[in-house]
């Protein structure tokens, strides 16, 4: 039988029937197979004298299975669904006789699962399971989604009797989505790893430089340690409060929580929105801007009083010259810690979730506090600025280098000292 396809067409496509060739037959162990399942094909050659090789080709695949000795049995896994998938055996002979052929059709049936594998967190997503090939009615779909050891399930009894089922809802947690159903009498299942895409929430960092009058005229005179400048939270003035809005140590005003009420992530709580930000200001002691201070220090400060004020300004802000994420200024160091060193708490809380709302609150507060500790400590550290920064270093070309006078309290009021004092605290 040199043209087996003719007979196959004659018998139709739905019933795979072994082709009774004159000398070659191929018989499958199953006529309907679940996608991903296997079937064994037995090829019989009568007579089998001079059989050199039996090759079996599968429609849609390029590599055949081959055997050189009896029995000619081939077990094959079918990963792609197809109705009337043709399997063809080709027998080659060592005698030089022409090849013989035999074919059989089988059905490979399964499910397809479509939907976003990387949905944006908190946005509605729909996942569709459908018979493969399409059009095969399914009476029940069994869905599951497993994340962090929690399994959500959904049974769709599919009352309209069509070939598909949809499970949809907002997605917030990575996990494994699965669906199983009986399709054409065969159990089929399909799965998809879902990795949630973050929403991209970079925190906003602002700073109002030299924002307001600050300090008291008498303070530098009476207190040698009076600070010259400060970088602090803009409204509360508290240096350590890096992230706002907040109620004291509680960051609840900065974010909202939502729970998922339908779909694969039902029952999970997540951070649905967040207004966390950094809102700083720098202030310079107003006294060092006065003419009196300039006059008193005219011979003290290198290169001059105006540069001394500039040095304080740069120290509180972004170093010299003004450089985004500079190591040499407090604001620059805040930017550096957040943008470069991974301490952006808004990015972290974006991806937090829990089954328990109180637990989520705890985690969010913890994440923000942890970041705040890191950012604050790094931003407040002046060791680098003193050692390396041009705005306040120890070398002669540093701004503010040298020494300056202090108002010393004497018996009859006060007086300016010699130029013997180095820069006090900022």
């Amino acid at each position, binding site marked *: 039988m040199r043209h087996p396809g003719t007979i196959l067409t004659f018998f139709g496509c739905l019933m795979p029937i072994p082709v009774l060739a004159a000398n070659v037959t191929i018989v499958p162990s199953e006529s309907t197979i679940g996608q991903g399942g296997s079937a064994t094909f037995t090829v019989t050659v009568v007579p089998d004298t001079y059989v050199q090789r039996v090759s079996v080709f599968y429609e849609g695949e390029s590599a055949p299975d081959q055997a050189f000795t009896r029995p000619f049995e081939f077990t094959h896994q079918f990963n792609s669904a197809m109705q009337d998938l043709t399997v063809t055996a080709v027998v080659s002979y060592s005698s030089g006789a022409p090849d013989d052929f035999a074919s059989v059709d089988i059905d490979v049936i399964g499910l397809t699962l479509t939907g976003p594998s990387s949905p944006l967190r908190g946005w509605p997503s729909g996942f569709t399971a459908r018979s493969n090939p399409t059009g095969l009615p399914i009476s029940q779909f069994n869905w599951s989604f497993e994340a962090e050891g929690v399994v959500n399930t959904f049974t769709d009894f599919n009352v309209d009797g069509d070939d598909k089922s949809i499970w949809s809802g907002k997605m917030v947690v990575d996990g494994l989505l699965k669906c199983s159903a009986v399709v054409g009498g065969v159990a089929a299942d399909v799965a998809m790893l879902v990795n949630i895409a973050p929403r991209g929430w970079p925190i906003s960092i602002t700073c109002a430089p030299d924002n307001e009058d600050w300090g008291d005229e008498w303070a530098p005179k009476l207190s040698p340690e009076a600070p010259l400048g400060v970088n602090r939270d803009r409204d509360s003035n508290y240096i350590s409060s890096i992230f706002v809005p907040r109620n004291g140590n509680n960051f609840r005003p900065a974010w909202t929580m939502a729970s998922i009420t339908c779909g694969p992530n039902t029952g999970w709580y997540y951070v649905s929105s967040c*207004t966390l930000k950094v809102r700083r200001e720098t202030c310079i002691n107003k006294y060092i801007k006065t003419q009196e201070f300039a006059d008193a220090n005219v011979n003290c400060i290198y290169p001059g009083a105006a540069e001394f004020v500039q040095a304080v300004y740069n120290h509180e802000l972004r170093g010299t010259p003004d450089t985004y994420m500079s190591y040499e200024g407090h604001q620059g160091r805040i930017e550096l810690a957040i943008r470069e060193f991974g301490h952006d708490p808004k990015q972290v809380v974006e991806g937090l979730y*829990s089954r328990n709302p109180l637990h989520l609150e705890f*985690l969010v507060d913890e994440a923000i506090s942890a970041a705040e*500790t890191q950012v604050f400590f790094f931003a407040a550290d002046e060791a680098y600025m003193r050692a390396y920064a041009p705005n306040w270093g120890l070398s002669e070309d540093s701004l503010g280098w040298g020494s300056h006078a202090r108002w010393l309290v004497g018996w009859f009021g006060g007086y300016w000292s010699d130029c013997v004092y180095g820069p006090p605290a900022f």
Partner: protein
Amino acid sequence: MRKTWIATYLIFLSLTSGSLGQVGDPSESVATLATSSEPKAVLNASLKLADILYRGDAQTVVQTRALLSQQLVSSSSPLVILRVSSVLCRKATPEIVAAVVQRLEQERSEENQTALWEGLVRLIDRVQLWPDTQSRLLKLARAVVNNRSLSIRMVSAATMVTAQLGGEGFDALLEARNKNPNVADVFYTAIAESSDVRAVGLLREAAADTRKTEGMRIQAVRGLGQVLAARQEKGQTLENRELELTAGLLAKLVAEAPSDQFFSAALRSWNRVAGRTQLIAMRAAVLEALDSGRPIREEAGLDVVYDNESLQDPEVINKVVARASAARSGAARAGAAAILEHRLSRE
């Protein structure tokens, strides 16, 4: 094929430590907190410990607290002191605070003292202190807030702690603000968080006092919103008359704000204090802020819309949508986006 899936899934699970990590042995996380300089490792350790403190069995919680307390009283690193305080703060105990106070009495390093004060700001927030601890802490705090030669950072932290030490702490701050100018830096913020009812009158007075610097007034204005929130958090209410006076003042300050920053602070606080009767006036102020074209006002307007769902009518939301793409400041755009995201999460 099934095996492939299982293997993939196991790899996937191992890669996603996620927010619900297994509650287990805290030693490793405490060690990471005490030694690591790797931000992600520190954050993960911190979240893991939070998880344990929240979800662990009694024995594990006790063990974790003990390990953290040990770090708190023995570490010579200011960063570790701050990190540990941050982790412990929501589950601190009177014993832990007592141990920190004892260390503070003996600590000589100014850096460590500062870190301990800053840690205490967090640690004592939700703890009922033992009377002996409270009196020793008050004594230490008085010494710091009255000392003008100490760093502004330490004085600020001690001021915040003192405000939380009840009526005596409040009195100590009133006394110290006349002696040490560095206390003034956070005085109004501190008393606002004290939840002492006397703070309201002082804050109103300062907010209205045009002789004070704008920075002081802004701090007081912000404090008026804060004091109410703090009292609500502790289950305390304010008399209606006090509320009306405060809301009335804040409405006036919004209208007469001398600067954008002042307007911004006043609008936010007003939103926290105002009742429904002021909703129309509040809405008008918010619309004005959103239309102002001035980033700080826009940002404040958006923050208020975010907080106050009663203001989220179609006209306001249309303006929010426009701000989400057209606002000049990144903070305003983020604020607008947050409102829209919040609305989406409710739909």
